[in-house]
């Protein structure tokens, strides 16, 4: 009998748990430790953030699903890993603090044979003074945040209906943020809602981003073929901004937010400010607040975690210039080299470097999008973790494990630009691979044939179909495992 502990119940952790439940025998135990009671289909939070969906449509309770699948569920926050055990534990274990209302604040130790770190990001609003729900801006990172954003947006729309001019700022709240695609989606959904409300002429919508240029999306932009020409996501995205009348400020690091004013530094070193009536700015991410200790209780956190809190896995973390970055730098198995029974998947693993070219302002401020690893890559990593752990349990730790590098992984993204079965639109994009491989694909680093982009109503239908399909899959309904990650 083996026990697999999964820290985190988001896309990567939940996917790993469900696949393990069908791959392991009844004698093995799967335990999910997550502080949240609900699963959230985060890509649809942008629709909650404009009032097109309710929070209940993008979330569901985890407990009934885990009960049905025979998975032990502990509503708790993992706080420390002891990968060698300690004086009173022969086996490795994790320390937990319960968030379950019936045991809130109680602590416990949970031994494991295999550990999956799928803790996702810590929303680091504190990195920028005045950022976030406790400051002066809104967020759509959680369904609760999105509900608050929607209410504030409706208030702005009501003011416009009374004839007041409003400045709506959407974007990234720090120079090292990731998930530019989500901010892009929210900006265009806000524009769509304001237009539908008949007050577009009273709204000045500004997209404030750390991307060097539009269309970067944290992946260095895309190149694809359209009507016989190779075009770029930069030109394509700029065209959409022009068509929809949205202003953009690029290469920006938000240095602070005050009531109604956002301050930012740009790549040219200038300090600027922008007054706003409504602002949704995403926070930068850092790893969960986890510590690690060896058998003697010595703190080995620096061995297991990068300075940003993400877990170091089988990547090449050698610091080198952009020109020397290679596809092989990226992890293949997500195993921790010194403790191969630990894997870190989804946002929890430390990327070796950015994907977009990193840049600094003349003042030395780093303004560089962090690499996105949400959605499809997270699901694939979760399934990979389950497959490899199941193989080790059934065939022994010496078994040849499978790999899934982001440098050999495709991404299919559908970025909503407005909701509505008849009047919605979205940008459908694919790229292969996510991490460019200039040795394999000289020029752009990606297969131009497998990389494409298209805007239209069909994209909205696809995003809506994906919403229902992935919630069906996450609820482990019949045939769920046939739906690809």
């Amino acid at each position, binding site marked *: 009998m083996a026990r697999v502990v999964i820290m985190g119940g988001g896309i990567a952790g939940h996917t790993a748990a469900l696949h393990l439940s069908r791959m392991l025998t009844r004698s093995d135990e799967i335990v999910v430790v997550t502080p949240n009671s609900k699963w959230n289909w985060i890509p649809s939070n942008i629709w909650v953030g404009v009032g097109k969906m309710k929070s209940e449509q993008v979330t569901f309770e985890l407990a009934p699903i885990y009960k049905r699948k025979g998975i032990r569920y502990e509503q708790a926050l993992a706080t420390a890993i002891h990968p060698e055990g300690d004086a009173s534990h022969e086996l490795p274990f994790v320390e937990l603090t319960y968030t379950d209302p019936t045991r809130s604040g109680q602590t416990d130790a949970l031994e494991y044979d295999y550990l999956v770190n799928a803790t996702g990001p810590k929303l680091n609003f504190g990195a920028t003074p005045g950022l976030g729900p406790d400051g002066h801006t809104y967020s759509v990172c959680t369904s609760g945040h999105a509900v608050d954003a929607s209410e504030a947006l409706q208030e702005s729309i009501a003011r416009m209906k009374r004839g007041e001019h409003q400045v709506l700022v959407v974007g990234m709240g720090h120079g090292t943020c990731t998930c530019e695609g989500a901010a892009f989606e929210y900006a265009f959904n806000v524009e769509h809602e304001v237009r539908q409300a008949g007050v577009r002429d009273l709204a000045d919508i500004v997209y404030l981003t750390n991307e060097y*240029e*539009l269309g970067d999306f944290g992946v260095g932009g895309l190149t694809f073929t359209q009507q016989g020409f190779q075009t770029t996501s*930069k*030109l394509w995205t*700029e*065209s959409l*901004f*022009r*068509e929809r009348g949205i*202003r*953009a*400020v*690029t290469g920006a690091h938000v240095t602070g937010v005050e009531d109604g004013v956002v301050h930012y530094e*740009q790549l040219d070193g200038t300090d600027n400010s922008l007054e706003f009536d409504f602002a949704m700015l995403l926070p930068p991410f850092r790893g969960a607040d986890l510590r690690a200790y060896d058998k003697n209780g010595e703190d080995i956190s620096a061995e297991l975690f990068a300075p940003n809190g993400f877990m170091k896995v089988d990547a090449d973390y050698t610091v080198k210039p952009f020109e020397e970055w290679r596809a092989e730098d990226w992890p293949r198995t997500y195993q921790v080299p010194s403790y191969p029974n630990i894997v870190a998947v989804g946002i929890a693993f430390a990327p070796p470097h950015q994907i977009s070219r990193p840049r600094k302002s003349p003042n030395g401020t780093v303004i560089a999008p962090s690499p996105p690893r949400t959605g499809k890559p997270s699901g694939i990593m979760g399934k990979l973790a389950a497959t490899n752990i199941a193989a080790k349990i059934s065939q022994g730790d010496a078994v040849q494990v499978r790999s899934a590098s982001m440098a*050999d*992984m*495709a991404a*299919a993204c559908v970025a909503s630009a407005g909701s509505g079965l*008849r*009047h919605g*639109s979205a940008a*459908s994009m*694919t790229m*292969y691979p996510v991490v460019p491989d200039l040795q394999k694909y000289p020029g752009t680093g990606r297969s131009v044939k*497998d990389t*494409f982009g*298209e*805007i*239209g*109503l*069909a*994209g909205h*239908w*696809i995003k809506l179909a994906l919403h229902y399909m992935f919630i069906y899959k996450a609820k482990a309904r019949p045939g769920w495992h046939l739906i*690809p990650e």
Partner: protein
Amino acid sequence: MDHTTHDIASAPLPTAKTLRARTGLLVQFERFLAINLKMAKIIRKEHR
């Protein structure tokens, strides 16, 4: 005017025909099938 503002101002604007095609039900139904097929091919390739 910074470079992004300039780039947006000089980006190509879709024609009325393109905009109609982006919302036309028949065209978009065909695109829905075509895009899904493209995505499925990429996912299948990745899983090989």
